[in-house]
């Protein structure tokens, strides 16, 4: 085996190691990688990916350059980024994602064990470092993609979960579903207040039937919303308080003060309508 990149005849570059055994490496690599995916990708698909990584890797071989952040590896990096993203969105696990590059080490090692020499092993050691780095790179990209997916979902959930519905002239309801944290409360509060102003409604019903648990923090958020609505000139009624929640609220010593609370949405609507009705009576 001749070596293009190193003047020392006992040295062998990992690039030439890969090139010399191209067919064998590709075959074993594909096999190992596909075996770890348990049939979720066909060998043909895996073979295509492996082939692409192989070509980019061999192109990136510029002798002693083993820093995968360098320009020589730009093609390979973008290829791996694309692969990791696809895998993350398809729901592959981190191991299943990284095995695509790690399998290369097994493949080369197997070949070396069959007919390896010392320069070959040296080249393998360098290749091994690069493959490790590439694997880490893939995992990082994978994690970033997953985080992006989670952030998107959280945002979608925020928008989904804040409908303000009009029940009657001047009465709107906000059925809350799911856990209330600060970020959600903010969105919910803004949506409710804006609707109150836009529709000129003086009564708002906050229904917490779908809120799984009420602790001091959730109660605090509810109180803030009610106070803000009061500042606008609207009154809030909190409804949908389940027996367990009522007990928790009392046990925690949460004071709802002069805010009206009702067990069911129906009671709350009745109260709000009566209040609106009284306005009519008063103006007579």
């Amino acid at each position, binding site marked *: 085996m001749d070596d293009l990149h190193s003047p020392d005849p006992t040295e062998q570059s990992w690039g030439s190691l890969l090139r010399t055994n191209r067919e064998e490496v590709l075959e074993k690599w594909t096999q190992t990688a596909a075996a770890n995916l348990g049939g979720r990708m066909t060998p043909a698909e895996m073979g295509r990916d492996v082939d692409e990584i192989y070509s980019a890797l061999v192109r990136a071989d510029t002798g002693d350059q083993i820093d995968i952040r360098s320009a020589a590896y730009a093609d390979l990096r973008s290829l791996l980024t694309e692969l990791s993203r696809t895998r993350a969105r398809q729901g592959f696990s981190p191991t299943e994602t990284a095995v695509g590059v790690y399998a290369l080490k097994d493949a080369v090692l197997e070949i070396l064990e069959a007919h390896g020499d010392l320069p070959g092993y040296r080249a393998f050691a360098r290749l091994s470092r690069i493959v490790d780095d590439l694997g880490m790179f893939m995992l990082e990209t994978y994690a970033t993609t997953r985080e992006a997916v989670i952030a998107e979902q959280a945002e979608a959930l925020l928008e989904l979960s804040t409908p303000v519905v009009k029940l009657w002239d001047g009465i709107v309801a906000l059925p809350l579903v799911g856990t209330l944290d600060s970020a959600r409360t*903010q969105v919910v*509060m*803004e949506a409710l*207040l*804006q609707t*109150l*102003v836009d529709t*000129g*409604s*003086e009564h708002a019903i906050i229904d917490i039937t779908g809120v799984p648990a009420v602790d001091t923090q959730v109660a605090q958020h509810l109180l*803030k919303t009610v*106070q*803000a*609505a*009061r*500042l*606008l*000139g*609207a009154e809030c009624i909190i409804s949908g308080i389940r027996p367990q929640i009522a007990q928790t609220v009392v046990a925690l010593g949460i004071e709802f003060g002069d805010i*009206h609370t009702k067990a069911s949405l129906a009671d709350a609507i009745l*109260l709000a309508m*009566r*209040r609106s009705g*009284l*306005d009519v009576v*008063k*103006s007579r």
Partner: protein
Amino acid sequence: MDRIPILRIGDVLLVSIQIDLQDQTALALQDDLSSKIVETGAKGVLIDISALEIVDSFIGRMISTTAAVSRVLDAETVVVGMQPAVAITLVELGLTLDGVRTALDVDRGLALLSSALGKAGSDVEVDDLAHE
């Protein structure tokens, strides 16, 4: 320095804040309003802050104290047209304007004032019904 105009409509004084309040302007408004209430013997004060988009703790407190001063001078005070963002800011600052009446717009504010001035027992009635 800008001065906020105070308009008299019958028994009611209407203060419409159309600019972002500076501290000095707010202080001057409190002076002007209290002397005007005494001068005209107004029974109600309507403070319209629908154009107010930015409040800090000082302006928030000024709104609160202005309303309190008017009440001491026996004029029912209603703050109307608060923007949602302003309401959220005030609540976050812990200024809930306790004891100040609020309404969604000037129209409802006037209705609230006339019913409050017309019959003093209206509050009790609301509570009575609410507890049924």
